[in-house]
């Protein structure tokens, strides 16, 4: 038996590991909404404008094999030109204002902006700093905010559902 077979055999012997049922249920709901409103695929371009890295870590976690957000029709893309939505994390540091605007401008219409994490709302714990331009909505028109420090994959799915409804 090759090492690859061994891994799969061990996984099957242990039973398939899945995330809580709520995530699965919500995911199915999200899939239907994306199928109806975005022709089955919803492309997101992520930009970090000064976050500590925890939000990105959770967004990446949403794409791991256990959550597998892609199966519901959500994909993270490398280029803003391929994106339906811009997902912004972190308080907007002054150094990132221009880059954020340029990324937004590079996206085709129609486009929307989603902010994720408490910092992105109004600066969070960094509110009032000399180098924070404010929340994402100080720079771009935000359509949806996902709360949390950081938001979990389930929160991400729930927020997307409530928005698409």
């Amino acid at each position, binding site marked *: 038996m090759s090492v690859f077979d061994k891994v799969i055999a061990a996984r099957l012997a242990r039973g398939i590991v899945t995330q809580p049922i709520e995530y699965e249920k919500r995911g199915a709901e999200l899939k239907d909404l994306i199928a109806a409103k975005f022709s089955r695929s919803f492309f997101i371009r992520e930009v970090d404008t000064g976050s500590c890295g925890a939000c990105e870590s959770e967004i990446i976690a949403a794409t791991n094999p256990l959550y597998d957000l892609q199966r519901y029709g959500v994909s993270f893309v490398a280029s803003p030109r391929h994106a339906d939505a811009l997902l912004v994390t972190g308080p907007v540091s002054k150094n990132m204002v221009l880059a954020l605007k340029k990324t937004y401008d590079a996206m085709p219409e129609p486009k929307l902006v989603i902010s994720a994490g408490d*910092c992105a709302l109004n600066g969070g714990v960094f509110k009032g700093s000399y180098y924070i331009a404010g929340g994402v909505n100080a720079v771009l028109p935000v359509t949806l905010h996902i709360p949390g420090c950081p938001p979990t994959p389930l929160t991400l799915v729930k927020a997307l559902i409530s928005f698409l409804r």
Partner: protein
Amino acid sequence: MEKLLFELTRLGIVPVKLTNENEVYLEVSPVDFKPACLALHKLLRSTVMLMFAEDRRSSEGTFTIRAGFIGTKPRQWYFVEQKVPGPVFGSIAKDIYSANLFEREIKEMFGLEPEGNPDCRRLRLHDEVWPGGYPLRKDFESAVPGPIGNYPFMPVEGEGVFELPVGPVHAGIIGPGHFRFSVAGEPIINLESRLGFTHRGVEKMFEGRDAASAAKLSECVAGDAAFSHSLACCRGVERACGITVPPRGEYLRGIFLELERLYNHVADVGTIALDVGFSFPAAEASVIKENLQALNGELTGSRFLKHVNLPGGVSRDLDQASVKKLLAQTAVAARDFRRLREILYSSVSFLDRVETTGALSKKLAEDLGVIGLAGRASGVKLDLREVFPGVYDGLKVVSREKGDVLARLEVRLDEFEESVRQIERLAARLPEGAVAGDEPLVGSGRALGWAESWRGPVLYWLRFTDGKLARAKIVDPSFHNWIGLNLAALDNIVPDFPVCNKSFNLSYAGNDL
């Protein structure tokens, strides 16, 4: 210590000596600052671990500049400090390279010119954005109007040489940074990274805070090292104010620190594989990481171990059932991880991509002051858990000599195993009692707090005045190591840069502060 004092006296320097526990402060005149730093640098074989200024004009009429070194044998921190009236101070960067970035930082934050430092470009307050004003001065209010400048990259010229700008917005889901490659064909002949895009003014945000809210803010400095940062911050508070942590609290901190190391190491092993296009082990690693983070969530209520540390101890206790779960889950993770390791080593094409790629020699790592995980992969064997063991016992410090991507991968693989072993040890000996002391009384004092995060040493130098922070200097290992990545990538081809970058996996947020 005697040898050191002898050496300084021989140089004609008579320092004023002040001590904390494990901390020695040597106050010297500005003329003696450089020779004293050089003596420490050579005798202790230490890089400049931290160097920072403090605005003491209101109480003493001058700025104070300190350079900190670590003595691994005497298990002490040494600080050389000088009083500088401004506006210039003598640079030591030409003799000790690791002071270079710190001096540039002092220049942009305090407006003190490092005389003799050849590189005076700004680090974080970008020229295109920030007209003027020195944020860390006590009388700073807001930016002062002035002309907006341009950042000069080092020009590389010659036939067929061209520049390849990348970032600050990258293709993946990662932090922002700008990389300027100068290439001739595929090989990289120069690489400059320009960071500071996630600068949030963290050190200024710390000023005026009390101990508890400082600990809370420290968790948002670098998200993937939230526990290490809050641990270093809390230790700084405790040492400055003489607060003792109950033994159970110390042991639990040890366990949580290793849990943070586990999930980060396995994530990096996965992404190194992913960056050379080997996605099967990457998926496997992300499952192990998810399970470990879910465990963190179950044990502490936070997948990133936030809100656990507080000055005086920890806020979460582990009951017997939790300890049992912890041991069972880490054993599962260790088993899965060994299999992951087997998968990686079974692929010759994977090893071919990582072996000899992005090599950083020991000499270069020492000269640049590369520390932590990346340093250990190049043979610089500094681990604060070994220097100041505390609850650790018989820690096996993992190191390699080659300094290539494979070496950094192997350091992670072995440290994972060692962390699991330490968790088992700590859990088995977990003492009974309280997990935190009484509500801390914070008066005035100064001290250094530290933690060996999964990346390397995290340092918090804090000064309290009447229970409020007057100055907090934070150093994340990323600050030392970005330059190491720039030089490790040289002579490699551009497509190998992502895997070099990932093998270092430095924090943007921790560096930019």
